[in-house]
């Protein structure tokens, strides 16, 4: 890698704005996530956390500001100071490099755990079935589910489903992983197994943005903590610092509820 690529942040948001019709959801978001960093994103319901993640993955198009992933503008091509919308094929190509894990898992119910993991490598990346299967099995092993390869999602617990979902995202070898409240739909005793997998990912240097209410996880794993409210970043900093010593009133009010 050259110096130029190592210094480009993985995610760079500059005054990002997003609205649905007249409803402004993201007012003005500027933040930077460097390579290998873990950022936790917290905030009250409706503050725009999911919308921001979806913009990074181009599931939504931003309305104003600039959003770059790995130095590339998301959803647009810039030429002679003019922006051109990407063709669907180019947008799909961009999304390959960004893995996403959803609150409701969103596994493909008609496919087994292994088939879920190898679907995109085979049909998007064009890998051979044998190669994809070998890698898929290794990934399931990595999330502790080697013995569940042939199970359908309906026969897995929530925690197991979420771990399959993580393996499925990893199968595309993403540069960046986005987690949208990955443990919010889980029974309390299953939260730990998913957080363990995420902790493992962080420890091997994966760049991650995690929307979560698990403050313990944020404090232990995250490099930075961002508190969002009403479409703006209210407070940002070292997780322990923000949690123990929040500066802003709204941060204090929010933290007193979730801690």
């Amino acid at each position, binding site marked *: 890698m050259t110096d130029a690529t190592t210094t480009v942040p993985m995610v760079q948001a500059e005054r990002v704005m997003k609205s649905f019709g007249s409803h402004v959801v993201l007012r003005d978001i500027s933040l930077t996530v460097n390579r290998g960093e873990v950022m936790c994103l917290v905030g009250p319901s409706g503050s725009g956390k999911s919308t921001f993640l979806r913009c990074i*993955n181009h*599931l939504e198009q931003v309305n104003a500001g600039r959003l770059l992933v790995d130095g590339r503008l998301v959803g647009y091509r810039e030429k002679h100071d003019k922006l051109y919308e990407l063709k*669907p*094929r180019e947008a*799909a*190509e961009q*999304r*390959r490099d*960004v*893995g*996403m894990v*959803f609150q*409701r898992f*969103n*596994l*493909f*119910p*008609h*496919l*087994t755990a292994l088939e879920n993991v190898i*679907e*995109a490598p085979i*049909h*998007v990346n064009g890998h051979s079935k044998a190669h994809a299967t070998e890698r898929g099995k290794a990934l399931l*092993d*990595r*999330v*502790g*589910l080697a*013995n569940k390869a*042939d*199970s*359908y*999602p*309906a*026969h*897995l*617990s929530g*925690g*197991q489903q979420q*771990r399959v*979902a993580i393996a*499925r*995202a*990893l199968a*595309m*070898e*993403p540069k960046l992983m986005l987690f949208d409240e990955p443990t919010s739909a889980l029974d309390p*005793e299953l939260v*730990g*197994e998913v957080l*363990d*997998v995420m902790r*493992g*990912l962080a*420890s*091997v*240097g*994966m760049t991650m943005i995690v929307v979560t209410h698990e403050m313990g996880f944020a404090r232990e794993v995250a490099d930075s903590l961002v508190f969002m409210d009403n479409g703006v970043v209210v407070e940002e900093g070292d997780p322990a610092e923000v949690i123990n010593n929040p500066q802003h009133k709204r941060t204090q009010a929010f933290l007193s509820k979730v801690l």
Partner: protein
Amino acid sequence: MSNDPGGRASVRPDSHEALPPIEAVKLRHPWRWLISFLLIAWVVLFIVDASHREAYDWSAYGKYVFDQRISKAALVTLQLTVYSMLLAVVLGVLLAVMRLSPNPVFKTVSWVYIWIFRGTPVYVQLVFWGLLATIYPSISVGIPGVTNLFDLPTTASFSLFWLAVIGLGLNEAAYMAEIVRSGLLSVDRGQDEAAKALGMSWSLTMRRIVLPQAMRIIIPPTGNEVISMLKTTSLVTAVPVATDLYTRSRDISSETFNPIPLLLVASTWYLFFTSILMVVQYFLEKRFARGHTQFAAAGDEGGLPEADVETLSEASPHD
């Protein structure tokens, strides 16, 4: 949770000897037995009576049920059903996908198609198809006013049989489009998002993720449509096609002046095909219920998931 006085938790002794199973007197259902008996008695009486009744003319029935003319006509009916349903399914999927696509041109075309073909009687449509050669003696292919690639003489190019298939299929496609559309809409939006997030294109998502799941919803009403199509083929006399099962058996009975046994013959064949279709439907439903809890795959024990997190290997995510 026990209601200990004082609210202290208690630890139960850890011995669980198996109790003998409960031996209770089974609940009786006298009414079920009585009604079943009455129904069976009535059916037996009906059959015994029917076997002697002259109007049914069972000897004529026996003579015609495997008659060459009848079995050939049955084959024509089956072909009409299969070909027109194939056309309807392909076109129906296309129309449904167009209707749900973000492209406003596709949406409108699909809407107008369904509006017209569902809004007029199939019998009238079949008469129109029969008159195709009268309305358009020849069909030109090319760009109007620029080039004319070739002319198709209508009568020579389309036999009445294929006009009937087109007529039935285009009409049915409007209904199939609505069935497919409701199937596609039944698939959770999160599926679409998950596929997109993996970099799958829209068409790949449709083919590999959405349609296979929609099939579970689409198949039962489609089975209905096939069976209903089998019977709708009796309307092809409007085109006119006279070689199908119903028209043929009616023609024979108008020669013999003995319609009742031939109606029974036709019904037997219709029922035979319907039964086959029901078996096919059963297996298709089972196939597309993959992963759905009601048809749990054998050997895949859905027992309590165990806590089986192992520590992650030290391998990098880019290995």
